[in-house]
């Protein structure tokens, strides 16, 4: 029987790791993720999880140890955030290039400078070109589920890529919510054993991993990572379907809420989706035709689903907690690229908000809506808008 209880997203992530039974976990503490390795170290110390837990001396070492373990052929897991993920950057490319299905839980947090421990998505967004799959959780249950899903997708032979699952700093990492812990047997059935054919340690069949790729081969190696990302789109759908069958919870790459007949669709990720759903309920009561779409999967970018979504709306209002300077948010770039060659497409308005833990309130969303409505009415509007700026201190 699944257990219904209450816990923080960090605990949910630790539980997911326990259920997935990785053989090696290497981690280094960082706010707001620290509770994940702490909880796992308890599971290991209490004999509830049969794994090696390595207390390394930095995130660079943590992910390197995971690469080593995964290259030796075992399931591995780690957790980090912000500066920690940034410090892993070099090795993230290596994990993807070596096709190692490592899973990282990330408590999405802003990057320095200035030093800030609170939520935005700049850490994971900045790693979008590493080849890793990226999932974003709206709540603590999703954090748990998506980690299990991430393992299953990552280890699929058509994919074999590492994956990160993001959940918002403090808003989720430190907030207690109801969570259902699935049955171990069902998880075992769902995930199975990880038995790699491409990366293993077997002196009887020696192989070299991560070696030099000359110009004659390097591009092809990169292309296989491209292809694996493309393959992941289908695999993710299959795994979502199997997950629903086994656990009863439905996931979609792009989850829509009240988008039927919507003129303006807000698009967002993570816990902000919860806020915006409530906001949309409130606007619907006033008779406004608005909806929300939430990206559960950000890499591979769900191009096909985004194109379908685009058919439904006159304006897509992107709400994002990240910046790519002189462009807008990363979603703005991704959405523009997905829609650029379509004959008919909605207007796209980009909103940067909630950086470094600033709360996103209905008042902020009103500000965004007003601009989206200008776009809807064919009036002039700014493509990129910073919402909730305290102009008086600039």
């Amino acid at each position: 029987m699944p257990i219904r209880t209450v816990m923080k997203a960090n605990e949910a992530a630790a539980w997911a790791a326990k259920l997935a039974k990785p053989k090696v976990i290497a981690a280094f503490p960082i706010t707001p993720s620290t509770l994940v390795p702490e909880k796992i170290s308890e599971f290991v110390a209490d004999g509830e999880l049969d794994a090696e837990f390595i207390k390394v001396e930095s995130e660079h070492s943590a992910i390197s140890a995971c690469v080593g373990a995964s290259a030796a052929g075992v399931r591995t897991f780690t957790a980090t955030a912000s500066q920690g993920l940034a410090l892993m950057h070099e090795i993230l490319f290596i994990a993807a290039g070596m096709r190692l299905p490592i899973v990282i839980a990330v408590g999405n947090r802003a990057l320095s400078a200035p030093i800030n421990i609170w939520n935005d998505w700049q850490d994971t967004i900045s790693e979008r070109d590493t080849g890793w799959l990226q999932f974003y959780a709206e709540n603590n249950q999703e954090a748990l589920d998506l980690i299990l899903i991430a393992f299953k997708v990552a280890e699929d032979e058509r994919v074999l890529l590492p994956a990160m699952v993001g959940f918002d700093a403090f808003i989720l990492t430190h907030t207690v919510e109801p969570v259902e812990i699935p049955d171990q047997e069902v998880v075992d059935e769902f995930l199975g054993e990880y038995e790699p054919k491409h990366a293993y340690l077997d002196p009887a069949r020696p192989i070299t991993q991560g070696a030099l790729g000359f110009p004659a081969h390097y591009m092809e190696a990169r292309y296989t990572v491209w292809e694996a990302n493309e393959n992941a789109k289908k695999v993710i759908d299959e795994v979502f379907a199997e997950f629903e069958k086994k656990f009863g919870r439905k996931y979609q790459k792009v989850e829509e809420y009240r988008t039927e007949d919507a003129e303006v669709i807000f698009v967002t990720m993570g816990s902000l989706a919860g806020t915006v759903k409530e906001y949309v309920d409130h606007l619907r009561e006033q008779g406004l035709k608005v909806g929300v779409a939430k990206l559960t999967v950000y890499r591979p970018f769900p191009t096909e689903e985004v194109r379908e979504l685009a058919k439904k709306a006159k304006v897509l209002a992107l709400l994002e907690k990240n910046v790519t300077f002189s462009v807008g948010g990363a979603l703005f770039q991704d959405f523009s690229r997905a829609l650029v060659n379509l004959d008919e497409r909605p207007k796209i308005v980009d909103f940067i908000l909630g950086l470094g833990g600033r709360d996103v309130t209905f008042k902020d969303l009103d500000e965004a809506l007003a601009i989206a409505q200008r776009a809807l009415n064919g009036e002039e509007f700014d493509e990129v808008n910073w919402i909730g700026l305290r102009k008086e201190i600039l």
Partner: protein
Amino acid sequence: MAKEIYSRYPMVKYLRKEALPTALCPGCGGGTVLNAFANAVDQLRIDPKDLVVVSGIGCSAWIASPYFLADTLHTTHGRAIAFATGVKVGLPDKKVVVISGDGDLASIGGNHLIHAARRNIDITVILVNNMIYGMTGGQVAPTTPFGAKTTTSPYRNIEHPLQISETVAAAGASYVARWTTAHVYQLIESIKKALQVKGFSLVEVVSQCPVQFGRRNRMKEPAEMLRWFLKNSVPISKAKKMSPEELEGKFVIGEFVNRERPEFVSELNKLIDEVQEHFGLKGEDDGV
């Protein structure tokens, strides 16, 4: 009320009053280190304008930034010494001081510590060794004593701690000393020497984190931790006559080295002079 207390503290002139009270927990050793540093600066009559204080990330990194009233550079976790190296080469006339934690300087940033000592660059490092990652909630560090309990070694630590002072002395520093927060006067004297030595200097301060370390190791009162330090401190001269087994769990205190060695920035400038001379490039404004 608070203001009144500050006005009675003679070192307050070195602190950013608007940032007080500090964010450190009551009884944290960080306050003692701040006090010792301010006293050393005061006794040497160093103008804070001639100081650049660099820190990494952690509770101990907060000692100087924002509280010490000088130019402070608050950097990333582990890299303070690398940043400070740049500052010193760029501003060789400034006294460059790094104040940060054991995790910051000896774990994630351990390589910079060893190489700065090897290079013998004229930087003073005050390393606050509370034997734990305090700021993130008390996880085991490479400096945690064997057998100690932490959040990531809930039963006991099975690894042995890095001997920071011994390692840095071996790596080539000009000056290395270790004291505890229970040895305040010796600590001030060592910080003064470290600030005057030309070359890399390290003052390791074994410090109490009652909240994250003490609480889990039956010393939740700061005073209990100070008593633990006093009871287990062994002067270097005596330690030399003891076996490794006898020294297990002891804090060896005193000056490990105090020696003259060629210093990096001077050597660098010497080289530049030589090369300029060789190529006949020595002009009127050739100062580096």
